[in-house]
């Protein structure tokens, strides 16, 4: 059994875990912002009538959803230098997370916009609004509400996915656990500690999702994780 589980070692390594946690949080935040940008762009392309923008957007979204993040990460990690972009691991990781999550965000936004009843658009047309006015004043404010809980669900997925960046040696939370496991041969101490930290992040985001659902007057959302 785990009779010699060493809390002292965990305390000793706490600064390392703290750094890892902070790195995981901010790299997730940046990646999520990136994912929002990619997602909005893709959703806008996907909602066009013409095929010129819609087809590439659809192809990109399907390609991302049908392949594992780890393969995408390695694709960028081993592929970018070949194209002449030698970037730090951390940047490659953030790029991979943004591009991956962006595809899922695009689908969430598209579903949100399509959930607005047709009558709303028609009322906008009847009031003499232009396309931009209808989008800005009628559709987006309503769609925004619907997308918040699933977006927070995607944020949970993103934080968990960021653990994969440890495999290209980005010094985030999982990497800290691996270091303790390999330096001191204490895998239990290392991995149980980081699991606890991830759970902390998970419950924070889950609580936020529940709160946002209540604030926005939506049904309690089934988290999409």
């Amino acid at each position, binding site marked *: 059994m785990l009779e010699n589980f060493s809390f002292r070692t965990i305390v000793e390594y706490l600064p390392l875990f703290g750094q890892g946690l902070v790195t995981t949080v901010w790299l997730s935040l940046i990646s999520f912002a990136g994912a929002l940008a990619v997602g909005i762009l893709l959703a806008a392309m996907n909602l066009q009538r013409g095929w010129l923008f819609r087809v590439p957007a659809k192809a990109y979204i399907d390609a991302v959803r049908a392949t594992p993040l*780890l393969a995408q990460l390695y694709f960028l990690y081993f592929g970018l230098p070949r194209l002449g972009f030698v970037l730090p691991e951390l940047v490659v990781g953030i790029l991979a997370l943004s591009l991956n999550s962006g595809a899922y965000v695009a689908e969430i936004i598209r579903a949100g916009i399509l959930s607005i009843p047709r009558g709303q658009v028609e009322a906008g047309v009847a009031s003499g609004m232009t396309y931009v006015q209808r989008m800005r004043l009628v559709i987006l404010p309503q769609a925004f509400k619907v997308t918040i809980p699933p977006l927070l669900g995607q944020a949970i997925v993103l934080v968990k996915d960021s653990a994969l960046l440890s495999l290209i040696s980005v010094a985030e939370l999982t990497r800290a656990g691996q270091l303790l496991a390999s330096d001191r041969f204490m895998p239990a101490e290392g991995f149980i500690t980081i699991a606890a930290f991830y759970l902390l992040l998970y419950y924070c985001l889950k609580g936020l999702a529940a709160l946002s659902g209540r604030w926005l007057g939506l049904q309690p959302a089934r988290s999409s994780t």
Partner: protein
Amino acid sequence: MIWQQLQSLAGSYPLALRGLGMTVALSLISLVLGTLLGFGLGILRTGGNRLISAAIGAWVDLIRGTPFLVQIFLIFFILPELGIELDAFTAGIIALTNLAACFICEIVAAGIRSVPTGQVEAALASGLSRWQRMRQVVLPQAMRIVLPPLVGQYVLLIKDSSVVSAIGLTDLTRVGWLVVQRVPNGLLVFFLVGLGYFIVCYPLIMLARRLEQRIGAAHGEVQL
């Protein structure tokens, strides 16, 4: 140069086949086990016993709240400390099955809860046993809700199987990693790796979409 690389890639096709076999074996075994376990857990979760339901809920939350990579490390490195010796393949199967079971449990539970109580009451009034009610009345109706996300879950499972390469299993992703050390063309190598997953996952994604549409249509909802 690209020709040389292609030749070199063609030379590593036995390795690629082995990796593909490993990915398929991992996914299939844990898909079957995870589905069985997930349905069992889902039925228990919606059963009368509060304690069992809460325990399952807590476990599911634990699994949903931690990265899969960390779960694999926990299983692979800590079970041996508890005296359970296991190889990487078994550890991978355990981790994937557990993950799938937890997600499928929630999908099945949601499906069962969606069946109107009148149906259960009618079954009770007809004198059906507990098992008969579940098998003949509740589950067939729940399946309509369960099926689309279940297929979606299988896609996630196949994709998540790539993470077991972290404990040294030579699956498709790991093969890409090995080949790229010899053939320095990451774009080409991982394009091919991605293609391998895409061929399996894309039809499943399409299937899930179609099932969703059919069910939406059956409920008389407007498809946009």
